[in-house]
């Protein structure tokens, strides 16, 4: 009797312990973008499949970045999965702060991840974060206005054509701006846009000796072109417009063209939010005449596991679930193919149903046209297209883009802004010991 009770207790105890080892609660920090919010809605599916529970910490992009960076650099251990981008992944991976994702299951089919995404989320050939969704940038334009202007958008236009088209579509009397582009300060906002624009004019952030290049004519050409284009045909106050501001302008029918993230395509073609949903066409991001690099970037929001988490297995299980083909099918079945997270997997673009989505092909072409290891015309010592994957970049580029935004607002000239940018970058690079 006595013994039996003891045995029973032991069995119960071991069951509890096994249960505890199996079913865990993982904490995931993520950004408050639509696709992630949707993912949260399907958490129950994950819990049903694996038994693990999920606690979400959803924050806006800037706060998220600040929060997860503080935590990982101090080894605070607050999160079991962090949502990070293509900028952070290689840097953190190199520091040994992330769990390598080199033992994912065969069923997961890691080779299905788009090569550009896999490359951008790896360090020394090891994958450190799994892309949840990926994006490039492309032109979105109003087919009706283009027709009215008597023009036709080529598949791969030049900046010169964009300027002509903007001039033709600009119609202040009817509250239509020829073109809307990002001008907001911040390395991930206007900073990203002007960097890719500069790339397409043959400019680069640094030469092979890490010498800042803002004093070169290509940068001046790019910035001059951008400022003139926007002053002539852009919306009021474009110096403070970022992704969101431009999105609402475009959805309200106030822009002839908009060059921005490919994920915007599903927003502008969604009739619930967009007044112009039926009149949107897509084209590759432009380049300056005679420059081989186009102005499209590459970005992915990806899931990574901080090294040192006690719940690595559960975290891996979550990543395999959230970035799997099954998840894509789950969303497609419930909300339609236009709403699945784009830009991560090759198989998605081979799915016939997805090929019917109007922006699918252009998104894939844009992603494929981006090469983070070879982003500019002249060789550079860095990886990244709209960013430079070094720890100093975020701070430096934010300050540089603030100078540019001040030039957009007419508070200083392009030359002044470039001179300041050169000074800021030189100072930072010297302080960091590159030079």
């Amino acid at each position: 009797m006595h013994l039996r009770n003891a045995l029973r207790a032991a069995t119960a105890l071991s069951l509890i312990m096994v249960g505890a080892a199996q079913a865990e609660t993982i904490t995931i920090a993520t950004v408050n973008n639509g696709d992630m919010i949707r993912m949260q809605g399907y958490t129950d599916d994950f819990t049903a499949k694996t038994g693990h529970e999920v606690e979400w910490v959803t924050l806006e992009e800037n706060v998220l970045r600040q929060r997860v960076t503080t935590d990982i650099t101090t080894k605070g251990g607050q999160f079991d999965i962090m949502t990070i981008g293509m900028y952070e992944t290689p840097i953190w991976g190199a520091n040994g702060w992330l769990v390598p994702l080199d033992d994912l299951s065969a069923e997961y089919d890691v080779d299905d991840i788009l090569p550009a995404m896999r490359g951008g989320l790896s360090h020394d050939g090891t994958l450190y974060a799994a892309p949840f969704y990926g994006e490039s940038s492309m032109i979105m334009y109003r087919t009706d206005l283009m027709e009215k202007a008597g023009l036709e958008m080529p598949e791969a236009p030049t900046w010169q054509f964009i300027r002509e088209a903007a001039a033709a579509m600009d119609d202040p009397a009817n509250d239509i701006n020829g073109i809307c582009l990002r001008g907001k300060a911040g390395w991930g906002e206007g900073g990203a846009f002007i960097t890719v624009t500069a790339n397409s004019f043959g400019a680069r952030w640094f030469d092979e000796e890490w010498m800042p290049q803002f004093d070169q004519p290509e940068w001046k050409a790019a910035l001059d072109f951008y400022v003139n284009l926007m002053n002539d045909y852009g919306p009021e106050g474009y110096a403070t417009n970022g992704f969101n501001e431009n999105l609402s302008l475009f959805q309200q029918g106030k822009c002839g063209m908009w060059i921005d993230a490919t994920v915007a395509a599903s927003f502008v073609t969604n009739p619930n939010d967009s007044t112009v949903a039926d009149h949107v066409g897509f084209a590759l991001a432009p380049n300056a005449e005679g420059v081989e690099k186009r102005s499209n970037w590459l970005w992915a929001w990806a899931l990574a596991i901080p090294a040192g988490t006690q719940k690595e297995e559960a975290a891996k299980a979550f990543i395999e679930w959230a970035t799997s083909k099954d998840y894509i099918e789950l969303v497609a079945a419930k909300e339609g193919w236009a709403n699945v997270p784009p830009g991560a997997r090759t198989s998605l673009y081979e799915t016939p149903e997805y090929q019917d989505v109007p922006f699918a092909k252009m998104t894939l072409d844009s992603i494929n046209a981006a090469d983070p290891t070879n982003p500019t015309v002249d060789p550079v010592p860095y990886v990244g297209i709209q960013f430079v994957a070094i720890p100093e970049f975020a701070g430096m580029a934010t300050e540089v883009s603030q100078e540019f935004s001040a030039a957009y607002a007419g508070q200083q000239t392009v030359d002044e802004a470039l001179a300041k940018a050169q000074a800021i970058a030189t100072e930072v690079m010297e302080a960091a010991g590159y030079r």
Partner: protein
Amino acid sequence: MARAVSPRRKLINTGLAWAIGLLIFFPILWTILTSFKTEAQAIASPPLFLGFDWTLENYGVVMERSDYGRFLMNSIIIAGGSTILGLIVAVPAAWSMAFVPSRRTKDILLWMLSTKMLPAVGVLYPIYLLFIQLGLLDSRAGLVIVMMLINLPIIVWMLYTYFREIPVEILEAARMDGATLKEEVLYILTPMAVPGIASTMLLNFILAWNEAFWTLNLTAVDAAPLTAFIASYSSPEGLFFAKLSAASTMAIAPILILGWFSQKQLVRGLTFGAVK
């Protein structure tokens, strides 16, 4: 208070005050109105004031997406806890400063205020590392302590000024009757200081409720208050004004309601010793 004035002047006063009051309140009103619109109506041009289809959709979305109750609970616990803890520490200190002043009392008061001048962001890493060591990250206890420390100087100062206004004669009389220190504080001072303590509590509750740097940076899940709730609705990809407005309304409603009921108390109580 109620001075006799001509009805005409009263009318002018009323009109002017209401106009200004509504103007100041308008941004909040607009936020509340926007929270009942659809996202498309929220950015409609020209703007829609009342003539839109009122919808509770945004509140539904917010309630479904986030565990509002938990954020609210954390805000109440952190703001309330830090206020109570602050009072426990501050009442004796303010009492002794007010009734047993020394030459250094004023210096100590000013020094206490000066501790508020260290820019929070400059000490983020030190405090974060400290919290890791102490195991206080993402704990309500940790935030209660931090919020208490941040607001302690204000609490001490406010209480000090209230206590100063209590006539010393009463205390002396009590002492003559043989009241102990404890009795003195409990039965004489405290009742007389209740209005002051109440408005101190209110002010500190509001300050702790609205603090958005430490509450965001030291929490994740368990202790995240409404400031973190707001951070999950500000500037996502896509349209968000209406949802943000709904979330904002939910975040400020509790404190607005509290303010509404305690308005008289606040108007009377926030003297900071300004009244002689």
